[in-house]
């Protein structure tokens, strides 16, 4: 652990030098979106300064350069999650768009009235609403596997909900509201036993652990760049090639076609079939730079460092009288959701902000989770690899002081 290059990492993130309300920024809202290292910022500046043109089109040098960098980033994503082929890596706006894409193409062509889609009670709205929309359209039924008071999936109940009618299992890899890491290996094995495809929502998991889609054997894995130290507005849909081949396109337009006449259109091959229109070129290149950056540190090192941060923060938080942790799963990522006796999370958020501490206060786009724990909202401190124990001390002191002031 002493070898984790925390000082170098912190120096790479210019925003960490920012003063908020005349105090050093303590940024603990990483589960909402995380900050960007200079290397990622530079990659975007470099793209627009030296290598920007449209991709896949021009014979001119710049277009070739941009295409190389764009497709190079796809290669990096493929290696990062260990996909078999770059054909399985589709660039989208984010995890939300990826899930909607799957709902509107794969699911719509495979799901009919009476069929079931199985999710869990800890899903983000982005893995609930697209399925509700699909169910309303098709007459399919959304099944929800329950969680326990620790915020863990009740696995036996989940397994019981897998039926002959289940056509898709869509599960969050790591919960953004609770930090819970789901037993995805078991979930996938149970679904595979009945030939049911599995979609993992990896938006929250991907910055905290190494992910190997072949080892997992999931059918779809989706994530957003902005939570992975990459720009906002870019994300990834991984899908097994055979499934992607069989799926109808999502949007029509340029780049996703091979031949167009007014009589008929022949679609392009993977992955371009799902990338209609000019893509988000610079931000894809930024995502590639973020992956380079993380590879240098090593995701296993990130996971070990963050586990230590979470352990430290949890132990300190538990000593605070009147603090209740929301989400105490045994398998948990670096998220600390909590409520305080008689102090609303929004007051906590404003008070901590005055000390330079950025946390999230609210329902975290997971209103059903709030309902389950019977709280209107929680305060959430979520950690990234650039956070330190000293920052956790600042947080803990801040919480203790605001409890005092509220009396």
């Amino acid at each position, binding site marked *: 652990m002493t070898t984790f290059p925390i000082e170098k990492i912190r120096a790479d993130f210019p925003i960490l030098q920012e003063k908020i309300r005349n105090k050093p920024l303590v940024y603990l809202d990483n589960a909402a979106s995380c900050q960007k290292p200079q290397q990622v910022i530079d990659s975007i500046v470099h793209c627009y300064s030296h290598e920007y043109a449209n991709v896949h089109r021009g014979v001119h040098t710049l277009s070739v350069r941009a295409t190389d960098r764009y497709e190079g980033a796809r290669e990096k994503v493929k290696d990062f999650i260990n996909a078999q082929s770059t054909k399985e890596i589709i660039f989208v706006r984010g995890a939300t768009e990826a899930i909607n894409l799957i709902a509107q193409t794969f699911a719509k062509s495979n799901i009919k009235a009476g069929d079931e889609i199985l999710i869990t009670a800890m899903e983000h709205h982005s893995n609930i609403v697209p399925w509700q929309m699909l169910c309303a359209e098709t007459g399919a039924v959304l099944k929800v596997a329950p969680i326990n008071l620790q915020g863990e999936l009740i696995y036996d109940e989940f397994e019981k909900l897998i039926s002959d009618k289940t056509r898709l299992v869509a599960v969050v890899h790591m919960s953004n509201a609770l930090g819970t890491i789901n037993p995805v290996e078991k979930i996938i094995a149970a679904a595979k036993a009945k030939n049911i495809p599995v979609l993992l929502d990896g938006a929250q998991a991907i910055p905290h652990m190494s992910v190997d889609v072949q080892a997992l054997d999931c059918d779809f894995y989706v994530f957003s760049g902005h939570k992975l130290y990459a720009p906002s507005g870019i994300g990834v849909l991984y899908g097994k090639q055979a499934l992607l081949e069989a799926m109808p396109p999502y949007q029509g337009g340029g780049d996703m076609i091979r031949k167009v006449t007014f009589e008929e259109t022949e679609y392009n091959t993977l992955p371009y079939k799902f990338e209609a229109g000019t893509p988000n070129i610079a931000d894809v290149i930024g995502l590639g730079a973020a992956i380079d950056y993380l590879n240098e540190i090593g995701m296993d090192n990130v996971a070990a460092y963050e586990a230590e941060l979470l352990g430290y923060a949890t132990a300190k938080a538990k000593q605070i009288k009147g603090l209740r942790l929301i989400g105490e799963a045994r398998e948990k990522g670096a998220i600390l959701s909590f409520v305080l006796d008689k102090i609303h999370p929004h007051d906590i958020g404003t*008070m901590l902000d005055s*000390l330079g501490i950025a946390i999230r206060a609210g329902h975290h786009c997971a209103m059903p989770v709030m309902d389950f724990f019977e709280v209107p909202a929680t305060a959430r401190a979520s950690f990234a690899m650039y956070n330190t124990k000293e920052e956790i001390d600042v947080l803990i002191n801040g919480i203790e002081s605001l409890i005092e002031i509220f009396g």
Partner: protein
Amino acid sequence: MFDDLRDLYQEVIFDHNRNPRNFHVMEDADRKVEGFNPLCGDRLTLFLKMDGDKISDASFQGSGCAISTASVSLMTEIVKGKTEAEAEELFKQFHEMTTGKEEKINLEAIGKLAVLAGVREYPARVKCATLAWHTLDAALKNEQESISTE
């Protein structure tokens, strides 16, 4: 430690948060409207007893942050005995005070509601302070459905 926040969290606000006034269900209310702020989960039910066009009694139930609780608590105090027109005028004044669109606030009319003027500097918290008044507005217009600040 929280010196910067003194304008927002005045002692009066802590006081009303700890001991909200008129915090009870009104069984014989003439008007009952729910207010909800989906962003933060603040939820309140406002009860009014009317005597002609005069608000003879006001009370509330619900849960929210210190700003929203203090705001609704103060509001139920100040609107008692006011006519509908007077209450609407107060709402207008309060809205101007908290959103800062007009500097010409009638401080005399606004009275102790002035303790909430600090939210103007905290755009994310303005809705906490105004939820009570939007709910009152709906109650005076006799809208029965629940209202939302979103």
